């Protein structure tokens, strides 16, 4: 028998800058997911919270924080943190509990309340923390790293600023149709080109904002889903949470340098490509089987890298896909049908869960105007600071 778990419910609190506590966003998303599943909170045997580091102690123990907000009912609790990959870790922990027979119904919740502007490291004088050091010594913000990758692509693959802008145009067109998105209006290439340069060559509209938001999933065993009369639920077939392989030769946040290759030859392929490869192997399918993908477009240029890393095209051909319209709604393999981070902004611990919410709605055929006709399989891909892989394969 397969190692599938069922997605019975998906729910979100709209992304934005709402000025309230992350707990409220998470609770709203959780209740929406439970309602979607037709279950009560008291039916849940385990809750897994994806932590946030931006709201003090309650954020570090998000599982219990959400359980308390929903009303203590004795469920098993887990709290996980893996930066941008926290949501995938939460889904992975929930799935492991279900497959191990420890719980039939697990509620996965992630939410964040983000500050305006650049993400900054935790306070204090901490010269042993690479995240503190990169700001102190270099002033290297997240967009600075995105810009280094973008410039490198331009030099090595011939990508252009117009290619990057097309990613924003495409994602904004999809996000316009998503009631949970923060930015819901079309964007033109001219508007991208007219926005301020943040870190050369990337402009404001090439870079994702930081957002408030919350997302939740109700995951169950396949037997439980059938017992509730859901014979053909959306299923999670793989969760990849791999780490990099030494020596890591692509500069990554928050590092000041890569590993050296003096002692070991670099392994073939990037860390990002290994994330997707592990997910495909576990799911027993490949990029050709996909109906859609949700990838982590922290910048427009980075979305093009993901096309290559998840195997939609060969290395260096990402820009060709967006130029052809292959990854737009109506294209051969739509990417970021939700509108992506370009339309949401990043609510860190909620984001990987939100990606799976989008797959769920697409695979059910309930994505409305964003619907990919006949969607049967999708992958989400993401990468957390400090070496956290994150990819989920869902099928119907």
């Amino acid at each position, binding site marked *: 028998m397969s190692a599938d778990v069922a997605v019975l419910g998906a729910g979100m609190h709209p992304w934005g800058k709402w000025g309230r506590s992350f707990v409220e966003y998470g609770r709203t998303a959780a209740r929406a997911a439970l309602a979607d599943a037709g279950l009560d909170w008291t039916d849940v045997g385990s809750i897994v919270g994806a932590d946030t580091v931006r709201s003090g102690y309650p954020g570090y123990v998000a599982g219990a924080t959400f359980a308390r907000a929903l009303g203590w009912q004795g469920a098993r609790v887990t709290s996980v943190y893996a930066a941008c990959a926290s949501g995938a870790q939460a889904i992975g922990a929930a799935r492991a509990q279900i497959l191990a027979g420890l719980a039939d119904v697990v509620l996965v919740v992630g939410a964040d309340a983000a500050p305006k502007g650049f993400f900054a490291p935790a306070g204090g004088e901490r010269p042993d923390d690479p995240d503190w050091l990169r700001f102190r010594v270099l002033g290297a*913000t997240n967009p600075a790293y995105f810009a280094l990758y973008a410039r490198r692509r331009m030099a090595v693959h011939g990508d252009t600023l117009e290619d990057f802008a097309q990613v924003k145009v495409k994602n904004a067109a999809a996000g316009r149709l998503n009631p949970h998105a923060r930015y819901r209006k079309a964007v033109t290439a001219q508007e991208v080109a007219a926005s301020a340069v943040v870190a050369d060559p990337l402009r404001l509209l090439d870079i994702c904002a930081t957002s408030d938001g919350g997302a939740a999933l109700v995951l169950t065993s396949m037997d439980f889903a059938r017992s509730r009369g859901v014979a053909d639920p959306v299923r999670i077939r793989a969760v990849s949470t791999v780490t990099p392989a030494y020596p890591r030769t692509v500069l990554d946040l928050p590092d000041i340098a890569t590993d050296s290759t003096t002692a070991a030859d670099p392994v073939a392929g990037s860390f990002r490509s290994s994330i997707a490869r592990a997910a495909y192997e576990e799911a027993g399918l490949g990029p050709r089987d996909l109906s859609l993908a949700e990838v982590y477009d922290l910048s427009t240029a980075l979305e093009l890298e993901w096309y290559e890393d998840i195997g939609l095209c060969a290395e260096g051909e990402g820009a060709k896909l967006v130029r052809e319209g292959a990854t737009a709604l109506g294209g051969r393999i739509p990417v970021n049908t939700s509108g992506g981070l370009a339309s949401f902004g990043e609510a860190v611990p909620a984001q990987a869960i939100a990606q799976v919410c989008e797959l769920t709605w697409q695979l059910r055929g309930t994505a409305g105007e964003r619907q990919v006709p006949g969607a049967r399989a999708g992958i989400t891909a993401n990468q957390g600071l400090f070496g956290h892989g994150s990819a989920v394969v869902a099928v119907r």
Partner: protein
Amino acid sequence: MARTRTPVVSGWFTENAADGGGFRLLGTRCSACTAVFFPREDAYCRNPRCPGGGELAEVPLSPRGRVWSYTDGRYRPPAPYVSDPAEPWEPYTLLAVELEAEGMVVLGQGAPGVEVADLAVGTEVEVVGGVLGEDAETTWVTWQFKPVGGAG
């Protein structure tokens, strides 16, 4: 009042390399497996296939490398980056430089006057000492990159 010149992080570079080569970044090298680390790793070797039993010895890194990529910072970074909020923000250039001998890419700010327009992927650059910032008592010294024989 004279300010004290202090490295922004101690042990990451020297202004007088032992080989007489002037300013150099300092890493460490594992005597058991030859892995090089920057920023320096003094407590353990991170190569998973290292046979073990080695020591991590300080080693100067290559003085020159080639640009892997580059960008600039058009907006003031948040603390702990030190800048005077009363002064207008002056963008600086940020370089990722590939050191061939070590097989690694190292980040560093461009020396004053080095602009994005002066650079291309593959440009040869050298590491030089520079000033990250100053406060009442201290001149914070750091490493910077500049094109070999070129701008800056």
